[in-house]
């Protein structure tokens, strides 16, 4: 077992300029990435971005239309559909081990170990047809872990679960996946899952990787306006220098705040309301506690953070230094 940090280990998976087609349509365009042992990477993107297609190609299930893929070791992929055979849970895991080529005498022990790790050992004797959605997902992930691949890929492992089941499964999956020695690539649809899981985040939009880095860093300093908007920067203020994008958490309703805005919409939430605020230069969104301001009410606010991007042709900008400067000035009301 190597103690080296993931970034120091040799890559187990590398693709260069990978393009993938689905039918006649190219869905993934020129993707290059590396995955190293011990790394836990989340692939995030909107519906139809090409996440599952990219995963299929990396796993070897779909041939690339262009580019190269190098794999050092065996790849196991847990597909999005957690379809299990109509037999017992333990049998479902052991049969996956049989397909993988594990010797018969090792299967039961390895299957139980993986089920235990995923908090599903108590389901061993249950028929797969009697499992709930969350339990099926646990077994599905467990059988993929049981084969102990060098490269592990999970395609939306939390899809279709209610909030409670998703939260508990996410918690268990984080523990198990972080302790795994393999390189792990997880496709997620929900940003919260990416933050909870990954050391590194890849953002795929329209078949192109538009961001690659630690999740917190990408959230705080998104590399482009497109990435920022995808990561939840839904507010937008424009001035002569460019545009400042904000997330609701960065917009704080404060009676002493330097900015004045009018409430355009207020959508009640469990603990307050999500309010849309119109002010000079654009609109921003904030979460207001009870009692929330009503529609057309005037409020004062301050913006703490945000990502600034210059207008097209107004010099380079990646939302980093410019954003910091603008945030400073907006917060102080200059």
């Amino acid at each position, binding site marked *: 077992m190597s103690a080296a940090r993931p970034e120091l280990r040799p890559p187990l998976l590398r693709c260069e300029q990978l393009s993938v087609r689905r039918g006649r349509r190219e869905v993934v365009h020129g993707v290059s990435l590396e995955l190293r042992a011990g790394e836990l990477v989340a692939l995030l993107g909107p519906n139809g971005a090409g996440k599952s297609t990219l995963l299929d190609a990396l796993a070897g299930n779909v041939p690339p239309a262009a580019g190269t893929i190098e794999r050092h070791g065996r790849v196991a992929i847990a597909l999005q*559909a957690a*379809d299990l055979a*109509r037999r017992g849970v333990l049998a479902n895991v052991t*049969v996956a081990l*049989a397909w*993988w080529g*594990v010797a*018969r005498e090792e299967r039961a022990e390895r299957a139980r170990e993986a089920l235990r790790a995923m908090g599903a050992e108590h389901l061993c004797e249950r028929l797969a047809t009697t499992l709930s959605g969350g339990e099926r997902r646990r077994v599905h992930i467990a059988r993929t872990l049981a084969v102990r691949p060098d490269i592990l890929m999970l395609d939306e492992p939390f899809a279709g679960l209610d909030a409670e089941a998703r939260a508990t499964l996410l918690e268990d999956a984080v523990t198990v996946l972080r302790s795994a020695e393999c390189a792990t690539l997880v496709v997620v649809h929900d940003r919260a899952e990416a933050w909870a899981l990954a050391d590194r985040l890849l953002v795929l939009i329209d078949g192109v990787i538009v961001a690659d880095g630690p999740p917190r860093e990408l959230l705080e300093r998104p590399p482009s306006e497109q990435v920022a908007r995808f990561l939840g920067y839904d507010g937008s203020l424009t001035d002569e220098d460019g545009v400042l994008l904000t997330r609701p958490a960065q917009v704080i309703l404060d009676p002493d705040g330097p900015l004045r805005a009018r409430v355009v919409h207020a959508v009640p939430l469990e603990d307050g309301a999500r309010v849309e605020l119109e002010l000079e230069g654009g609109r921003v969104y904030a979460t207001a506690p009870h009692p929330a301001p009503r529609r057309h009410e005037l409020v004062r606010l301050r913006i703490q953070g945000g990502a600034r991007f210059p207008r097209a042709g107004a010099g380079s900008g990646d939302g980093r230094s410019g954003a910091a400067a603008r945030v400073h000035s907006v917060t102080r009301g200059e």
Partner: protein
Amino acid sequence: MKLVWDEFRDAVPLVFHGNPYLGSIIWFTVQVAVVATAIAALIGLPIALAIGLGRFRGRRVLHVLANAGLAVPPVLVGLLLYLLFVPTGPLGSLHLVLTRRSVFIAQTILAIPYVVALSAAAIQGLPPGLLNQARAFGASRVQLSVLALREARIGVIAALIAALGSTLSEVGAMVVVGGNLYGYDQTLAGAALFEGNAEHYEDAIAIGYVLMVLIFIAMCALGLLQQRGGGIRMRFRPAR
């Protein structure tokens, strides 16, 4: 109603008092049904698996042909076999016409479309995620086929039930190619037809009752297997 009951009552002694004629027909019918269904399964299930799991051009055409095979008139099959097997035909040297073997062949050919069409439909109805996941884990073709048959077992057994039913009750083909020769290559259905043509309606109805009992027993056995979820124990071997 009285007539129907009387015929049934008259048939019982024929069965239980060791009537060699009826006994031989029952035995030949069982042989034809079991052998023809087994051979149809051996030929048809691989074709059904290829249609259900394969990714080759023409598999849809193959499935359409199998579906069409369900509606082919047995008499037509019998005629084609007859023309193949007559001494002047392409397979005349095999001397199959008006033999028991030609009955086995005719009933097998009629049973194959049932196995192929219904099993392929059952396999195609499986959740694609299950099969794709097995492929992703590296399952071999044999392992994938075993998985598909096991998962689609209710539909596959239904296909075998339909095939067995056709081998027990179809007469058109075997009459033409086998001749429905008295005491030689008659099945129960053929014998009922023979007695009916000879205006021995009581005997025809009595044989029909025996056939119905045989069909009922066979269907109950397969139906029980189906209801138990197949009850088939299949072992998976590791991929080499």
